[in-house]
């Protein structure tokens, strides 16, 4: 019985830890997340522009 309770406690602890690790807790983390989103969108736009350049060639 004690073992089962111990295992359950471990699982509860794990769920708490993992739950805290994936959510935003405060405005500072939210700001960092927004910054990350902005960078990601910029990167995607940059990638698309690279594709655009890749299908064109320079002329003088």
């Amino acid at each position, binding site marked *: 019985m004690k073992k089962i309770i111990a295992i359950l406690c471990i699982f509860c602890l794990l769920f708490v830890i993992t739950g805290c690790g994936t*959510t935003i807790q405060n405005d500072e983390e939210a700001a960092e997340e927004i*910054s990350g989103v902005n960078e*990601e969108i910029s990167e995607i736009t940059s990638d698309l522009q690279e594709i655009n350049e890749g299908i064109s060639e320079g002329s003088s």
Partner: protein
Amino acid sequence: MKKNLAITFVLVLMCSSLASAGFFSDSLRFIYTGNLITGDTVAEAGIQEGEEGISEPAPEPEPEQVTEEPSSEPVTEEPSSEQTYQEPTYQDQPKEGCWVGDEQVPCPGEDQQQYNNQPQYNDYQSQPYQGQQRYRAPEQNQYQQTVCGDGICEGDEKYGCQDDCGFTSENPMKQFNGDYQKELYGEEWCAGGQCCPDGICDDFEQKMGACSIDCSGTSSGGNGQYGQQYGAPEQNTYVMKEEIDATEALTLVLKLEEIRMKLGTDGGLYEQIQNLNEYCESKETEDCSRYENALAMMTETSVSLETLMSDLKSSIEANGKLTQGDLMKLKNNIHNIVDNGLLKITYALIGVDITIETIAVEETYVDYQGSYDDSYVAECGNGLCEPDYGEDSSNCPNDCMAETTTEEVEETETTTEEVEETETTTEEVEETETTTEEAVE
């Protein structure tokens, strides 16, 4: 023995539980990616290497990395928001080209390329997440002492900074008859009264590439009147490739697939915005519909990318390559995805009320008839053929393909009908589009 088994079982369960919750995905990502520096997957790295192969001789050192500007996030190594494109600048190949002592001067025929590459990105200037649009000479090229674009023609700018040293509509003759032009192009400059700009691309100007205003269209079959008619000679610096082979084409498709996955519901970007949405909802103090709109728009963008990829794959399977028509279509749809997809996602994130709509994948390049006002001046090189504004294959082959086969005509006609069908009137918007409020519901 049983105890050992039980402990092992518990440990396995613990690890799997942690892994499924994404606990290892960020901080310990290197364990399964093998990339200690960035944590990027090998697959991603492979695709990035592939993209270098397909792009133009792109600048290898990124501007931000060279200048080492202070960043608010010193840990991350991802490109900052300013790195929206990599300009082909002088620093890419510092020892190539023509040199006079320690100064690099434009080689004959190259002066139009040096700075005129930039206007190709004009279509993106309205995007809020692209802050860096003008040249900042001290950071990005060899002209360390001067700033190109400050309105002062100084130092080495006379060899390449058209913004400051001429080529402007306000003072087109500025510096054009000066000594430095003769130094560059010889005593024949302005010989016989044929100066620049005079609306005539004479043999000397054409041969030397010395007057982009007069000769902007000559490289691709234009004439002297073209530069004056359109007033945008810088636009004409890139032409569409005639075709690309299957290998390169498949690399393009893979790159699109990478972008689609990033934007898709399983991508990191989607997850990030979802986290923001959850945080916003947990606060219960502000309207969180903007994040939901952004998520909805991301889904639409991802779907349109998938459709585009599917079409491209069909073309590759059928022809073994991508033809110029396919490339035109790709270029047009990339513009479409950026303007109607990514731009709207950004707008949604900052709280602008957007309309979520399906991004149509056009069958070929689109003639945006009737969408401009009377003051509109066509820009050659923007990827749009605008015959109503004087563009045709003779004066702007970049936008209007010169040889149009019967099949292409039929295809274009079909596309025009499709475009007419997809043009959104007020009623159609009400019927087919989901407004912000509806999306929230």
